[in-house]
């Protein structure tokens, strides 16, 4: 058949070779393909695989994200003592260098796998998948993934987690959600940490932080926590308990859960507008 003039293309497939069509010919030597897939398809594929693993074992995976020093490890340290009384827990730690954070978690008697990313500013689904080989998912109920301290890059990579928690510590200022909209838009829970410093850092307004999160069209709950005021952690522990219970009933129904912002939402949107 003739590939040059297109006479072998049936009427029903004519749209494929039309300009913008999937098999559009470009002059004599070229062709084009319409793709409309996320640039991070490979990462998203591995993330979906991770999520399937978690769901099959009934494990809730929670991704903790914040700037460096906002208190992700401190929050885990302070809550693990209580969490481990009710649930079996493991932690994946992501840092550019050192095993320090994993050591701090292990000192609580909890299994921790350290991912040393070298120069990478975020965890991706492949790194988490590799770390999962060291964890017995049948032996845990909750997996905390402590991402690399960074308010930018970690927000763009799905790891297979069910929930995103963004921490915002009082010394950072209440305008961080406006400065890092991609991160705070992706949060299922915003934890204001180090609230014991509010009396001395009185330019931080929890209400302003809340309205900055809402301005991102995000209705995520906002908790005020301090690891130095153990009572303040109750709301966080309650939230976790609720997430585990909901996840278990979802798993029992054969359903899964994605974080609030779904990376492939953009893909569907792209397909919808092109149709």
């Amino acid at each position: 058949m003739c590939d040059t003039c297109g006479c072998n293309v049936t009427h029903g497939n004519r749209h494929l070779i039309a300009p913008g069509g999937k098999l559009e010919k470009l002059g004599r030597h070229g062709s084009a393909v319409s793709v409309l897939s996320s640039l991070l398809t490979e990462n998203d594929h591995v993330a979906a695989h991770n999520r399937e693993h978690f769901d099959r074992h009934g494990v809730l995976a929670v991704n903790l994200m914040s700037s460096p020093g906002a208190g992700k490890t401190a929050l885990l340290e302070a809550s693990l003592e209580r969490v481990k009384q009710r649930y079996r827990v493991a932690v994946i730690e992501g840092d550019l260098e050192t095993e320090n954070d994993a050591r701090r978690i292990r000192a609580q008697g909890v299994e921790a796998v350290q991912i040393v990313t070298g120069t990478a500013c975020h965890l991706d689904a492949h790194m988490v998948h590799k770390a999962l080989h060291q964890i017995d998912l049948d032996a845990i109920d909750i997996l905390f993934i402590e991402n690399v301290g960074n308010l930018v890059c970690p927000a763009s990579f799905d790891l297979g987690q069910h929930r995103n928690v963004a921490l915002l510590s009082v010394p950072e200022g209440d305008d961080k959600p406006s400065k890092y909209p991609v991160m705070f838009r992706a949060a299922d829970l915003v934890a204001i940490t180090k609230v014991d410093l509010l009396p001395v850092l009185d330019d931080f307004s929890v209400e302003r932080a809340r309205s900055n999160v809402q301005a991102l069209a995000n209705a995520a709950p906002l908790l005020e926590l301090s690891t130095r005021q153990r009572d303040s952690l109750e709301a966080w522990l309650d939230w976790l308990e609720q997430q585990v219970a909901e996840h278990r009933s979802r798993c029992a129904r054969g359903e899964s859960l994605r974080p609030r912002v779904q990376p492939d939402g953009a893909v569907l949107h792209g397909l919808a507008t092109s149709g």
Partner: protein
Amino acid sequence: MHELAVCQALIDQVEHLAREQHALRVARIEVTIGPLSGVEAQLLEQAYPLAAAGSLAEGAELCLEPAPVRVHCAQCNRDSDASANRLLCAHCGNWQTSLLSGDELLLRRVEFFREQAYV
């Protein structure tokens, strides 16, 4: 800083398509990118030649098309433009909106050279 990783993922995907199409090399790559994708267009452009070097996409033109931030308001049922950190309805000011556009990071279209050009 993660733009190089994103760019490498882009090149992998494009090379896969090129092999599928039995193409000799890639001529042009079109990407749609929104401000809420978390990827900076300018950094992606800078990372691109590094990621493309030695691949079938080396020398291919990278065309980045920005996507506007648009929201739909659940309260007044209208659409409006918004900025990346204020996704409020421009008509009624409501914050309970859903994003229509602006978080895309999409490979839209790839052009290939399929035959050796006659000299």
